[in-house]
């Protein structure tokens, strides 16, 4: 059975049908691309899958559980983590603290233990910091661990968001334009990192990206949406030559 199984998911905002009859199956460990022209509904799909929006119809099953309509917190706990197109970091906290917030649910140090500073608190805190630091290392952010998140340059902020999402120990990672605003070299480097974390953490990734060549290069399958509808869902070679996809991007 697929890790994520989306069935006929749809949402309307008033009269606007933003996503309609969206179907998708992601297997464990798969790297999936989600592409489409501006305004096609890609981010809306992410928001539906992470509980930010409640779907008006359809359903999706994650890891054997029906998750449509659940809260973002419950969805994250079930194993879906995400990043945001417009970066959402905890700006007034340090880089390492941002990742430690992601580790929140993996620690069971209670409120009383924290307030009374019992040995378990100190042990938990050291472990958490170490885990966070190791995650930062993967993204080459370990040197910035103690600076404020808002003081990081743009590219590093994007990486920090991925590190924070990974900290929640997901089975499926949703990346919303992780390379937006990066130069070609940075983008290529980031894509390598993404492929690397997929292998290292053995997670599935669903990726929104505009840079076609990159998506084609690393994704195993690609789903293309236009006006909220899937127009193609196949391996990159097929997507590349699909006349509907070409016309959606280049026009008739």
């Amino acid at each position, binding site marked *: 059975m697929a890790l994520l199984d989306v069935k006929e998911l749809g949402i309307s905002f008033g009269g606007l049908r933003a996503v309609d009859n969206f179907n998708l199956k992601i297997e464990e460990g798969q790297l999936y691309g989600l592409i489409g022209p501006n305004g096609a509904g890609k981010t809306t799909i992410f928001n539906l899958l992470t509980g*930010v929006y409640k779907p008006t119809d359809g359903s999706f099953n994650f890891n054997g559980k029906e998750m449509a309509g659940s*809260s*973002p917190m419950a969805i994250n706990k079930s194993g879906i*983590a995400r990043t945001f197109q417009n970066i959402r970091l905890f700006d007034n906290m340090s880089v390492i603290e941002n990742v430690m917030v*992601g580790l*929140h649910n993996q620690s069971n140090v209670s409120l009383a233990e924290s*307030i009374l*500073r019992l040995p378990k608190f100190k042990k938990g805190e050291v472990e958490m910091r170490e885990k966070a630091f190791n995650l930062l290392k993967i993204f080459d952010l370990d040197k910035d661990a103690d600076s404020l998140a808002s*003081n990081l340059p743009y590219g590093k902020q994007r990486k920090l968001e991925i590190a924070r999402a990974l900290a*929640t120990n997901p089975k499926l990672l949703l990346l919303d334009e992780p390379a937006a605003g990066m130069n070609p070299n940075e983008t290529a480097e980031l894509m390598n990192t993404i492929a690397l974390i997929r292998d290292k953490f053995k997670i599935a990734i669903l990726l929104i990206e505009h840079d076609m060549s990159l998506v084609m290069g690393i994704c195993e399958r690609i789903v293309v949406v236009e006006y909220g509808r899937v127009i193609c869902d196949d391996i990159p070679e097929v997507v590349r030559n699909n006349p509907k996809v070409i016309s959606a991007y280049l026009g008739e």
Partner: protein
Amino acid sequence: MENKKSILFAIIAIVIFIALFTLVEMGLLSRQYMGLLVPICVNIILAVSLNLIVGFLGELSLGHAGFMSIGAYAGCLFTVYANLPPFIEIPLALIIGGLVAALFGFIIGIPALRLRGDYLAIVTLGFGEIVRSVLNSLKIVGGSGGLKGINSGMHKSDYYIVAYIVVIITILVISNFINSRHGRAVKAIRDNVIAAESVGINVVYYKILGFVIAAFFAGMAGVLYGHNIGILKPATFDFNKSIEILVMVIMGSMGNIPGSIIAAIILTVLPEALRFLQDYRMLIYAVALILIMLFSSNPTLIEFRKKIFGKKEKGGK
């Protein structure tokens, strides 16, 4: 690092206590300043606890005096009717006051889940005023005439010791809370609710928890206040009191506990210290407030201050 900080805090706390104790016992403090010791402690507790809501949770609350008055009345009613030795009665009164206030913190925390910013400020303002009006008309707590005869049997001049202990507990509990995974969750909610939810933070739980903890300590501050004065009047806990506490938090810079403590001390002592100015007192007080605000938030002046004290910009709080 963490250990060094704790030791430093313990040393400072003990040194200040010994200094205070000797000053009081040797009669070196004037009566005017003796009378300020407990109010300073009460204001520190109020400012530090409100800072948890405003500075760390990022919600504007204008009803802190409401929590204070609920705690004060609950704890002081206990003292009026109970007849126990002071060393049992006072801690019990403090805990009762804190718990009843915490209950109301829970109730106020619920609208805070749906309202933000100005709207929540209006709700908390309304809460404070409702509490005051209800107390004003409630016969069993003395109505507008006030609740009289709050006497635990402890000598009046010894209350500052109790108040000092409560201050230390407040600072320890709130700063330990903030510097834990729970506190980080609270700060994450302040910085970005949507992102906090997306990494699995229970926003409902932590918002309410923030209000409950802050209200608990505000309630204890109220109990201390009531025992020190010996009479509780609803009019004391008006909107101005809430604003006064908020000014301390903002002046000490939001999310900064030592700042709240210093601001609470200055703002309690300043009006008394300016008494010699007679008619010009409130005028100078206002000017002093503006100057302190500028000094703590104006970028150029912060640079200037850093040059003098050689403090380096640190990441995180």
